[in-house]
């Protein structure tokens, strides 16, 4: 029923609230978290989360660290980074840490939704591949 289910992580509450409302109007389910630990906890509680939209600059635990944790604990979840300023170093680091893509704040909503859909598609692809591989293993084992 939803096109996608995402987790929106940003320490700026106003941003998160408004963004969530807008996304939901576009048929995207949004879970919210205002810091890294909350994000991890949400991911644990809601395995239906497909994509995380993650702010880079956050107090206490910054975005790159959270990204690494997510990729470690929930490897199939795709992460889109949101950055207040695009230093290339940030972007490169993000990609190396496993982010799917990055966007600059303030971003066009359409761009975000498009990227979310892409990420979801990619995730499904990976999942199907994973299942296939498993099946292959099993059948081989049996044979």
């Amino acid at each position, binding site marked *: 029923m939803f096109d996608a289910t995402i987790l929106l992580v940003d320490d700026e509450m106003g941003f998160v609230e408004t963004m969530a409302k807008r996304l939901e109007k576009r048929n995207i389910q949004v879970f919210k978290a205002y810091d890294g630990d909350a994000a991890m906890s949400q991911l644990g509680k809601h395995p239906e989360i497909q994509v995380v939209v993650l702010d880079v600059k956050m107090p206490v635990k910054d975005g790159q660290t959270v990204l690494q944790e997510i990729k470690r604990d929930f490897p199939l979840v795709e992460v889109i980074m949101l950055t*207040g300023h695009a230093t290339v170093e940030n972007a490169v680091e993000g990609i190396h840490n496993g982010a799917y893509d990055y966007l600059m704040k303030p971003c066009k*909503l359409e761009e975000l939704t498009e990227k979310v859909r*892409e990420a979801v598609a990619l995730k499904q692809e990976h999942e199907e591949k994973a299942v296939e591989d498993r099946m292959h293993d099993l059948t081989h084992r049996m044979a």
Partner: protein
Amino acid sequence: MQIEEKTSYDKLSRNIVLTVLTVSLAPLILVGGLIFDQFSSIYREKVYAHLGEVVDKHRDNVDNFLEEKRSEVQYLGRIFSYDQLTDPVFLAETLRSMQQEYGRIFVDLGVVDQSGRQVAYSGPFDLLGADYSDAEWYKDSRNTDTGISDVFLGLRQAPHFIISCNFHSGGKEWTLRATIDFLAFSHLVENIRIGKTGYAYLINQRGAFQTKPPAHHDKQFSLTPVRTIQRPTAGEEVTIQETEGSDGETYITVSSSLRNVSWELVYHQNTSDAFSAMIRSELFTLVIFLLGGLGIAIMAVVLSRKLVAGFKLVDRETELMSKQMVETGKLAAIGELAAGIAHEINNPVAIMIEEAGWVSDLLEDETADMNSRQEIERALSQVRTQGRRCKDITHKLLSFARQTDSRVTDVALAPLIHEVAEISMQQARYAQVNFDFDLTESMPEVRASVSELQQVFLNLINNSIQAMEETNGGTLTLSCGIEGGQAVVTVADTGPGIAAANLSRIFDPFFTTKPVGKGSGLGLSICFGIIHQMGGEIDVESSVGIGTKFTIRLPFSLTEE
């Protein structure tokens, strides 16, 4: 501050000058004075010694002369008898013989009997029968065998002196006397000119001149001894004194007593004349010294001026450099501040845009009347547009901040381009753009700032991708290699291309073909600036409907660095 500065430099200058002068002049004066003094005393010694010797020798001459004459007269008296000599013809003959033999130094001859009467005479004067019993010379000659009289005018009324010899023969006592030619004798005495003012003469025991006194002095001229020069090595026969004349000048007076007669040979010379050579060389030395001193003083002043000027320069430069460093520090701080502000602003702006978007979303559901709705939509659109302007402004700020932190290193181009392409990979896929790589992995490195190069490549790649959105995708070709001794990077797309009219202005700041709010037009101008600062070139080729190609040329880093 300025005035303080000036005087402290002046003080420094003065100190340097004083030090140099003291250090160079003090030993100079010391040594110079020492040598001067030594020279002075040695020279004086020599002069005195010389004078003493000369006078001594001269006195000897005079002595010998007188002795000679005396013994000649005595000889006459010994070989001829009283009778012979009192014969006028014989006497005349004898005189002539003497004069022939010894020159006209003998003026006349005469025989005087024991009563003092001249009984025989041969000579130019009419003195036969003259009575000398009262004459000084005759009275003086009574006590000795031979005698030499003082110079006197006598009966002839002309200066002369007499050599007399007493004989005792034939039961008689008689005296043979001869007159010595005063002029010739004078010449002999005076013939001791040394220097310009040296003059010799004879004086008797009472100080009366026997020969002519110096011509340039009047009769009243007298010499007052000031001090006697001690000469331990000299004989006692010569006395050297420093005297002051009645004309106010100082003289050296050298005197020596004659042996045969109680006369004194006196030689005197102006001190300045005697020491003229020494005084000349002393003056010369002094002049040299003064000139040298002047030279040193001038050099000291010039040197110190130059030094101080040099110091001033160095101080100024140091001041300038530290000011520059402070400025750079300030700039870096401002850069950081700018980055911080940009960060801070982005969040509220993002929220504003989202809220506007949200209102816009809600509006979609409402069926408000036409006019208001359009107007609200327009207004919201404005909010979004202005928000994006804020974004662009903070971008500029951040790019400025980034520029103040551009460290130059050796950069390998191929991996860098890969990295940057990776970032845009997703966007490319979204725009249906394919990457095509032609990167020379093993090319030498260029000397540049990593962040700046990233900025440039990213800008070009994003521009290309954006352009190809219009053509529903295409191919983005990235290449790097060596060409003509330089590194060459190309970013080529198969986009719509750029119109020839716009091509020439493409690197101009604020030039953009994008509608308002969609790009500041700064990207390419910044790229241009960055590349040129690195010493490279960037240019563009484009054909409408075919594509665009940007070419960047960069110099390689110098190998030994």
